[in-house]
């Protein structure tokens, strides 16, 4: 182990402090006895209990989860299809334009995306609710999925599909039994990306949500404007815990996969 110089120690401390002190404060105050967020009055878990009683928050959490699952599934199907066409069909008229248009929403300000979707829903007379949020999220996260999947498709050996067809598969069967299993890690990470994007989206959701459906980010944002309550701290702490568990699990799983692959390669020699 190398010893860190004092400069590195200072940089590291400040960097991590900058990143994590706000979150640490949030977590600590979620266990505060007092109703006042800035005054410490002893340890308690009562805000967690109250959170569990709060119908509005639970409803919003349920809506958010529903929206995230449905919209990321739609985005994954559409994004994979788009990636497939753009990588596979070679040169066709307008290909550059199409691939540019797939990526454009990545850099488009969310306000614009949200507003244009809102105008569309009004124009076609669609009542705003869970359905409109799902469509909106599906639309913008599809681009992320197609970026992830098309980068995997670009390195996919097409002769694998030809081999499948050579051995008796129809085009769809070849896709289902060879291509999809091989690119599945990319498809899954595309889905997860779309899922997280949908979970924490505030801007587009607030444009497309209606009175009948509110997502958690909208709920948190609007209740914070009326004053921060320790309940929100508790809710945020739960979310942080869930995210941390997810990230740690994923990194352990991928580390194990790498170890297994190294061992397999040793067997081959």
């Amino acid at each position, binding site marked *: 182990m190398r010893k860190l110089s004092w400069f590195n120690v200072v940089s590291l401390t400040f960097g991590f402090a900058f990143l994590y002190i706000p979150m640490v404060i949030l977590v600590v105050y979620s266990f505060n006895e007092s109703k006042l967020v800035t005054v410490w009055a002893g340890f308690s878990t009562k805000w967690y209990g109250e959170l569990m009683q709060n119908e509005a928050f639970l409803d919003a959490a349920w809506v958010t989860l529903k929206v995230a699952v449905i919209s990321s599934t739609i985005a994954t199907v559409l994004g994979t299809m788009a990636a497939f066409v753009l990588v596979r069909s070679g040169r066709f008229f307008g290909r550059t334009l199409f691939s540019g248009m797939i990526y454009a929403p990545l850099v488009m300000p969310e306000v614009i995306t949200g507003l244009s979707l809102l105008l569309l829903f009004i124009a076609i007379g669609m009542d705003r609710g869970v359905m409109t949020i799902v469509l909106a999220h599906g639309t913008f996260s599809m681009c992320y999925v197609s970026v992830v999947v098309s980068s995997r498709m670009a390195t996919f050996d097409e002769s694998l599909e030809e081999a499948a067809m050579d051995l008796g598969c*129809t085009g769809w069967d070849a896709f289902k039994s060879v291509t999809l299993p091989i690119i599945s890690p990319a498809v899954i990470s595309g889905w997860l990306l779309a899922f997280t994007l949908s979970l924490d989206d505030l801007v587009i959701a607030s444009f497309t949500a209606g009175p009948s459906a509110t997502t958690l980010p909208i709920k948190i944002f609007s209740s914070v404007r009326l004053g921060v309550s320790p309940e929100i701290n508790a809710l945020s702490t739960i979310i942080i815990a869930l995210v941390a568990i997810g990230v740690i699990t994923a990194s352990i799983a991928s580390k194990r996969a790498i170890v297994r692959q190294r061992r397999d390669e040793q067997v*081959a020699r």
Partner: protein
Amino acid sequence: MNNAQFAPWEDPAAKPLIEFKGVTKNYGTFTAIDNIDLKIYPREFFALLGPSGCGKTTLMRMLGGFETVTKGSITIDGEDMAGIPPNKRAVNMMFQSYALFPHLSVADNLAFGLKRSDMPKSEIQGRVEEMLRLVKLQKFAGRKPHQLSGGQKQRVALARALAKAPKLLLLDEPLGALDKKLRQETQFELMDIQEKTGTTFVIVTHDQEEAMTVASRIAVMDDGKLVQVDTPDRIYEAPNSVYVADFIGDVNIIEGGVSNVSGEAAELSWSEGKPAIKGVSGERIQKGSSGAFAIRPEKIAISRDKPVDVHNCVQGVVEDIAYLGNMSTYYVRLDNGSLIKAQTANSRRIARRGLTWEDSVWLSWTDTAGIILPT
């Protein structure tokens, strides 16, 4: 299989398995395959040989159904293949990259095609084991492709392509990824398996040694055209053009004018005041036109004194000697400036060190050792 007896291409009554009739393939304005007629017979081991970009892979992929035909027709076993997709053809292909399915075990890779055929489920297991035995990989049935060495992957790919007992097996540079020693061993294994299964093999390769070793017939291709289709020994001994002579093995080319043609024999005048070279007359040569004399280095004898009773002899100076262990190649510069290679086998352990650099020597060959080709 006895090669001397196996020659269906010489039997006019034999029914070809594959027939190309005027097959042309265009990519835009580029012609990849130019009006090819070719017959390949059952149980043949047929090699498509040529430099990269000559169209050999395209020709094979047409048989597999991966490329469409622009003009002309391909029939396999009497059936026109136009519009028939790869999964409906009794043809299997072994891919250059092997294309093993990485998410499936060796056994599942072999069973992949069988599960999609009309073979009953109960027989699939037995067939997979049979194929594993054929390529000697019984112990590796449960492994995934990335747990195999290059040679093992190659054998799995071969077994998978043979599992459905196709009428025709296509091999796209099957040994390209193997090192030289393994490649030579595998060549004989391939021939062995081809004999055992009785399948017709069409192999694409740019390695002329490989084609010569495995094939019953070779088609030499250049620029989308078939230059010569013949047995390996005919291709080597009686090439029909300078291109083929130059592509297959080592050759000396002496250019000149055809001064006489009489039946099988011909003469080529190549240098003022020197007697004409006598050789076998190649196809399509005419008296008075330009021609080239092609002779293999091992057919040229080298000596210090002028040999008697030999018509073809020329004098030159040894410019370089390459000692290759089993043989030595002498590079001899003639008076007119051309460089001729002569090869002698080092059959005795201590080679006669009779010849050395700057020695004046005589090169000689018999009247039938070389061939005179049109240019």
